[in-house]
């Protein structure tokens, strides 16, 4: 409650000059960046070496699971930044730098994904069955997957992988983050305004390409784990989850930065309220997409489609399916509908942590049951047996890398776009009655 009240007091806003004095730098915290990257590499090495027993097969499922999870958050940040430029939004300017850092460090997730790429190219570990159609896929399925070989082959996979991250570098780093950083110390005037307008214009095609690339990224990384199964909705499903992950991260990120004395005046309850609204909207959107995808496949009941859900709602995985329905949709829906909660940043942060955990479990639900299908292992001991220690190691390793990339990108740069032409307008933002 205290937090709500103190933030309320500032809802009339501060000036850009006051913002510059509001500790808008990472300062000491920036040192975390390189350390986190080193820790990530060490953890990866430990995890990899520990998992030699099954030729790292289970390890790679954990790795993919955590990799798509963290990447989704940064993709969410990229899309959010692009949409805000397309809409010429001014409310979001003051909080836009954090998504810009995530979008600007997204290309580094291309480095974090290299173990997956190498695993695919060397073709030694049975994770993506299409890598070795001849010996990993049998019977009638072999013919089906052979027909897809024009798309599902290792060379094209590598080319696409390169395209994704080259484009993410172009939009996230070169255009958006660099364009915004350039304005920080630029004098006000036409040239600065032109910089903003250039970002506005480039964001429209940027959005189109990023969305398409995200779709194929999701198809490649997750959907092709079952080379038979397909869903035209899958890209949108990944998108819905990505936005949930992103807004939850934003809430926690600002809560953390403010608790270290940064941007205490600039970021107010109004911004948390809007993150809460977006989070609520995407919880609903995710529910809508997940339900539509499930219901249509359930209703038509065609075997090559139902196989995906068949594994996931039977035997050990049943509780996880229910958890998706209630924990990822129904409960947060009821929670975030309240304005009181959206404007109370303590409760909102609890909700954000919950959503991040559930978003992580959503990716667990998408990725790991395929391990069971491929190996034919029936854990039989409930969800606990489906779980593996490598999940935790990969969570920490990729999490450290992802956060380290963010911190290195932030470095000595201001953590709010101090020089944005719309910054003054943005600081006055008040959303209860607009």
């Amino acid at each position, binding site marked *: 409650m205290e937090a709500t009240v103190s933030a309320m007091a500032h809802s009339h806003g501060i000036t850009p000059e006051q913002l510059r004095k509001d500790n808008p730098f990472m300062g000491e915290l920036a040192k975390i960046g390189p350390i986190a990257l080193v820790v990530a590499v060490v953890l990866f090495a430990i995890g990899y070496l520990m998992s030699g027993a099954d030729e790292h097969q289970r390890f790679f499922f954990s790795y993919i699971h955590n990799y798509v999870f963290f990447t989704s958050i940064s993709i969410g940040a990229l899309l959010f930044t692009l949409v805000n430029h397309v809409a010429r939004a001014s409310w979001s300017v003051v909080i836009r730098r954090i998504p810009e850092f995530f979008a600007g460090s997204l290309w580094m997730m291309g480095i974090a994904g290299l173990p997956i790429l190498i695993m695919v190219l060397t073709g030694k570990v049975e994770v993506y069955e299409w890598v070795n159609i001849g010996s990993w896929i049998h019977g009638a399925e072999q013919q089906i997957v052979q027909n897809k070989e024009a798309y599902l082959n290792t060379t094209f996979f590598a080319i696409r992988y390169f395209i994704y991250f080259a484009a993410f570098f172009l939009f996230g780093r070169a255009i958006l983050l660099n364009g915004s950083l350039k304005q920080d110390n630029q004098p006000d005037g036409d040239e600065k305004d032109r910089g903003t307008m250039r970002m506005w214009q480039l964001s429209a095609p940027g959005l189109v390409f990023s969305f398409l690339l995200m779709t194929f990224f999701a198809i490649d990384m997750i959907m092709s784990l079952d080379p038979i199964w397909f869903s035209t909705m899958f890209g949108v499903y990944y998108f819905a989850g990505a936005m949930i992950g992103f807004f939850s991260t934003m809430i926690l990120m600002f809560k953390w930065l403010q608790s270290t004395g940064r941007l205490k005046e600039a970021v107010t309850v109004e911004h948390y309220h809007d993150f809460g609204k977006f989070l609520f909207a995407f919880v609903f959107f995710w529910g809508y997409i997940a*339900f539509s995808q*499930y*219901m249509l496949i*359930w*209703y038509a*009941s065609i075997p090559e489609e139902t196989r995906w859900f068949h594994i996931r709602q039977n035997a050990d995985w049943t509780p996880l399916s229910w958890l998706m329905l209630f924990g990822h949709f129904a409960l947060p829906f009821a929670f975030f509908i309240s304005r009181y909660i959206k404007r109370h940043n303590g409760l909102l942060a609890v909700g954000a942590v919950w959503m991040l955990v559930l978003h992580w479990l959503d990716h667990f639900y998408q990725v790991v049951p395929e391990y069971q299908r491929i190996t034919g292992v029936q854990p039989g001991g409930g969800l606990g047996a489906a779980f593996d220690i490598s999940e935790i190691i990969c969570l920490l390793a990729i999490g450290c890398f992802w956060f380290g990339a963010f911190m290195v990108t932030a470095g000595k740069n201001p953590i709010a776009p101090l020089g944005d032409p719309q910054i003054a307008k943005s600081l006055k933002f008040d959303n209860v*009655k*607009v």
Partner: protein
Amino acid sequence: MSQTEAKTMTIEEPTEGRKLLGYLLEFDNVDDLTHGAEKVRDAGYSNWDCHTPFPVHGLDHAMGAKPSHVQWIVLACGFTGLLTGLFIQWWMNAVVHQGNVVTGYQYFISGKPFWSVPANIPVMFELTILFSAFASFFGMLGVNRLPQYNHFTMYSERFGQVTDDKFFISISSEDPKFDVGKTRDMLSGLKGTYLEVLED
């Protein structure tokens, strides 16, 4: 537009022997109205109101008015709609009653169980929205006591401009703090343009 320049206010006099219904003070901009509302609020009146052609940002606070709680009506009705949707589909398609009771009717369709919830979600959803939408509209009318075709402000000749470009503060004579002289003095101290006396 003219916050700085002094305003001249026309002030009407009450007529002897007619029942006084209240005062109506006219403003020509939102700033003066908002400041006026703060003064009336601080003077402790309760049966008074501001009238504007469109909702004015910050006026609720200036009036000390409480926020709306229509959402609770909507929530209750929405939940009722959800349960109604669930119940009718179960009752009509999932079970067959025996005896003299009106029976449900079970259809065997595409091998689905009689009680298949995924197929029942759309109707549950639509009924939730339908009930909630009715609740927001009629709940709003109920809380606002609309329609109301008779109100003391409607005795005014000038009040028609409230739906055009003028702003008003009305104080009812039924307000416990209302006093023919004092209230008038208080209102004439505001930056209004016309103080009207409303009589039966």
